[in-house]
């Protein structure tokens, strides 16, 4: 039997673990000879430690704590000095294995016990299998949700795809080109959207939201609120008659508020399902309680508009749930120094995406906004008009709201590349316009990204290292102020159009959904995966998976890979008939026992 020394340290100060209790628990474990609490970010005296190890004749050391890896090199060194086998320095990483949750101390004990026995915790802590309902719920109809749905449905398994808006497609449907290959987003996405719609195993619930989830892994009961579309999805032929007659026009969300849509509308021509819907907040009939207007219902040649349709709730039973709720852009108003909302020609990245999109409000022309009279509301509005003057210079500011603890401490992962793509589009469409990129670190990490960056530079975009400090207006001219670090000087570039590469944040409703499902979220607000390296698509809660941006920012290929990966867990559980139960269903003693049994596992 090994003589084990347990050293418990802390790297983060916000642990929920009761360390004293943990220490006494460790002391009572059979092989443990020595337990020592090291405190927060300990300074390790290697020589003294080596002496201590030698004295205690320890032949295995367990470093326990939240992120104990930070102390490992010192301990490995000490153990080596003391004549031990450095591979017998084991880690019991609490935080990394989910001991940041409610039952932190119990979880920590289990992790510690496994390390003492020299077995990886994930090998031992396998929840008891549950029986699995063969249907799957996918929440979110962006590219991740679409991919996951197709992956599962193509195997002949039932999928409910719940999407909050009136169409699937998510953000990707709004994009023009995708980096670094510059292929058209619609060309690659719309066939998948149509495939989802036509798939006999996929039940598409658009305009719907998950309101309540009960049951247990393998047998969830899900309450879905089906908001009234007010247009019969099956019979609508998207003839546009209703939209033509509708008198109400409001900003179009799909076009990032650059243009208007009607109260009865289709989000975009290639929307799936290809059917119109009524925006109840804008519709005169709905708002007036059925007393005014109603023109569209009269006009519809097929009579498929029912303005009095009510929301309803349906309950579905599923065995697995895939979270693919995606993201939204950080509110650029918050980053005050860039004047978003104050200057009409400061655009967010998504607005620019729509503007450059060939099917967008300007037909793909890059223009500066012009003031136009909204005849109905009798107010002047700044709109992107295809006839508007093209900008002579465009500034693209990276890291807007990213890498800054005031907004998002994390890197949003996609902005560098999409900004470069913007530069390309600007240079391509307006060869005479100057284009500036202001960046901190150019994160061109993916396949073909670095080459893409070089290409954009060669195309004549000015790539300036230095975050822009502010956007100001000088004599009616927008000026971007920053430091050009490589050239070692301050710069003030006049820009007719400023594009903010706004970072991403978890989608609205993530908090509620996390609560309803019992899935933990990380410090940044995204859903937490079960295990950073080993299980990036699983969650603590068995039968619930994460894919795409809702887990962390990521680009399309990584999103798609994750979404497909989710399919593996789902299909495996359905085909074998048993899925993964909740991790907290395991008792400490059970884990201890399992750990003891598999002690000799490592070969």
């Amino acid at each position: 039997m090994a003589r084990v020394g347990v050293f418990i340290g802390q790297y983060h100060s916000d642990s929920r673990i009761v360390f004293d209790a943990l220490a006494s628990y460790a002391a009572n474990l059979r092989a443990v000879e020595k337990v020592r609490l090291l405190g927060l970010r300990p300074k390790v005296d290697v020589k003294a430690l080596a002496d201590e190890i030698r004295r205690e004749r320890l032949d295995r050391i367990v470093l326990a704590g939240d992120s104990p890896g930070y102390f490992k090199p010192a301990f490995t060194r000490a153990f080596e000095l003391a004549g031990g086998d450095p591979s017998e320095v084991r880690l019991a990483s609490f935080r990394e294995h989910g001991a940041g949750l409610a039952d932190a101390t119990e979880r920590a004990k289990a992790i510690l016990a496994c390390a003492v026995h020299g077995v990886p915790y994930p090998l031992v802590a396998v929840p008891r299998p549950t029986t699995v309902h063969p249907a799957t719920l996918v929440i979110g109809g962006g590219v991740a949700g679409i991919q996951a749905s197709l992956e599962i449905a193509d195997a002949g398994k039932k999928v409910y795809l719940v999407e909050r808006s009136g169409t699937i497609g998510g953000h990707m449907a709004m994009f023009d080109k995708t980096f670094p290959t510059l292929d058209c987003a619609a060309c690659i996405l719309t066939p998948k959207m149509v495939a989802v719609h036509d798939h006999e195993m996929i039940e598409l619930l658009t305009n719907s939201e998950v309101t309540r989830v009960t049951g247990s892994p393998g047998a969830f009961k899900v309450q879905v609120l089906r908001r009234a579309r007010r247009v019969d999805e099956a019979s609508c032929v998207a003839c546009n008659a209703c939209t033509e007659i509708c008198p109400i026009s409001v900003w179009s969300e799909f076009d990032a508020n650059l243009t208007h849509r009607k109260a009865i509308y289709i989000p975009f021509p290639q929307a799936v399902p290809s059917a119109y819907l009524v925006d109840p907040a804008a519709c005169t009939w709905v708002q007036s309680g059925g007393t005014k207007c109603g023109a569209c219902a009269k006009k519809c040649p097929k009579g498929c508009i029912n303005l009095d349709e009510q929301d309803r709730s349906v309950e579905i039973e599923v065995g697995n749930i895939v979270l693919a709720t995606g993201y939204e852009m950080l509110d650029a108003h918050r980053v005050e120094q860039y004047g978003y909302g104050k200057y009409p020609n400061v655009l967010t990245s998504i607005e620019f995406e729509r503007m450059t999109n060939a099917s967008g409000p300007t037909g793909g022309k890059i223009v500066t906004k012009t003031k136009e009279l909204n005849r109905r509301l009798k107010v002047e509005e700044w709109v992107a008009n295809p006839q508007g003057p093209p900008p002579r210079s465009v500034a693209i500011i990276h890291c807007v709201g990213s890498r800054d603890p005031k907004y998002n401490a994390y890197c949003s992962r996609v902005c560098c590349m999409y900004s470069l793509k913007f530069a390309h589009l600007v240079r391509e469409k307006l060869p005479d316009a100057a284009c500036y990129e202001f960046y901190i670190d150019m994160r061109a990490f993916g396949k073909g990204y670095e080459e893409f960056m070089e290409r954009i530079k060669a195309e004549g975009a000015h790539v300036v290292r230095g975050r822009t400090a502010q956007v100001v207006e000088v004599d009616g001219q927008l000026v971007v102020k920053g430091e050009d670090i490589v050239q070692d000087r301050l710069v003030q570039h006049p820009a007719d159009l400023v594009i903010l590469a706004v970072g991403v944040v978890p989608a609205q409703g993530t908090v509620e959904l996390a609560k309803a499902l019992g899935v933990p979220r990380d410090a940044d607000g995204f859903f937490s995966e079960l295990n950073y390296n080993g299980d990036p698509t699983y969650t603590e809660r068995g039968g619930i998976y994460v894919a795409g941006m809702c887990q962390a920012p990521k680009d399309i290929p990584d999103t798609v890979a994750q979404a497909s990966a989710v399919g593996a867990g789902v299909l495996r559980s359905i085909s074998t008939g048993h899925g993964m139960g909740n991790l907290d269903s395991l008792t400490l003693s059970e884990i201890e026992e399992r750990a003891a049994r598999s002690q000799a596992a490592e070969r």
Partner: protein
Amino acid sequence: MAIRVNPKLIDELATYGAADVQNCYHCGNCSAVCAHSDDTFVFPRKPMRLLQMGLEKRIEASLDPWLCYYCGQCSTQCPRGAEPGETMMSLRRWLTSRYDFTGISRLFYVSWKAEVGALVLVAVLTCVGFLTYGFLNGNIAHYDGPTAFLPSSVVHVFDWVMAVALSLLLLINAGRMWWFTTVKNPRIRPRLASYLKALYLLPLQFLTQKEYARCESRRPWAIHLSLMLSYVTMLILIMFFLKQIQEGPAIAWPFHAFGYVATAGLLFGVIHAMRGRIARKEPHLKHSHESDWIFLVMLLVVTLTGVVQHVLHRSGLELAANIAYVVHLSLVVPMLMLEVPFGKWSHLAYRPLAAFLAAIHRDALVSQRTSTANGEPGSTSRALAAA
């Protein structure tokens, strides 16, 4: 020729108060928001970089820290919590210690105990000295008149001796500042004419601290200016009209009026600074080095003892007034002796000098740039003009 980086410097600077400089990831935001940063002097990012890398000679040659007035705008906007404002402050402390040829300054900044010890020592010596003089030549019960315990004439002479000594010390240090930043700076080839042209800046900056006013918020400048003017008023009163203000018992209104205003100014400034440093709300008052507190406390007690001494004297309590005077002098002298050449107060010389030298650097750089005609494109104004 490559210069050697010194990764240890950052640790050294930590003792001067630069605790977070390593966090800077060089986005350049700070330089861009800084009202003082311009094409010639790009800071605070650049000096922070030099500090991270430990390029001592480059920092020594840099005027940047002295051009910063620490409004804290940079620190507020810093996405990495690198506290550029405080770093600049720390660099000023470090530079002060570098300019000081005696090494005393460094000792004080590195160890507050040494500073306090020195203060006590000088205080005791001063106290002993004045008491000895007083008891040998006067009567402790008499404040005014021929048997005055500490006659103004004597104190006046002492003042002048001290002023000359301190000025010399400060001048030597200021000279070193010029030497490091301008003479030894390989990038600057100053022209003699520009020295003359910029000479007006020395009194102007000293008296108006105009540069400070360019900061995002003008309040700190106003407070600092009032503090400085109060101090200068006091200095003038003491150096030239000591007799009038010391001797009484009647209040010499033409002089004392100035004294009262200056005292109020000093008290207001000091208390404001202390309260701010306790509240830690404003960015420039968030971080306090030990030397800051020593300085403020000294200034406060000096002012207060001065007030007490004056009140006692005017109330006719001459003995008490004498005691208070000795105490006052025992505080003033060490404060001046240690702070003016070696401590925070030295900036009264370095600030205007920096503004003066900055003008010379600018001038030199412009002429150097025009002489290398195909120089780099686009200063700010040119970029704007082109558009």
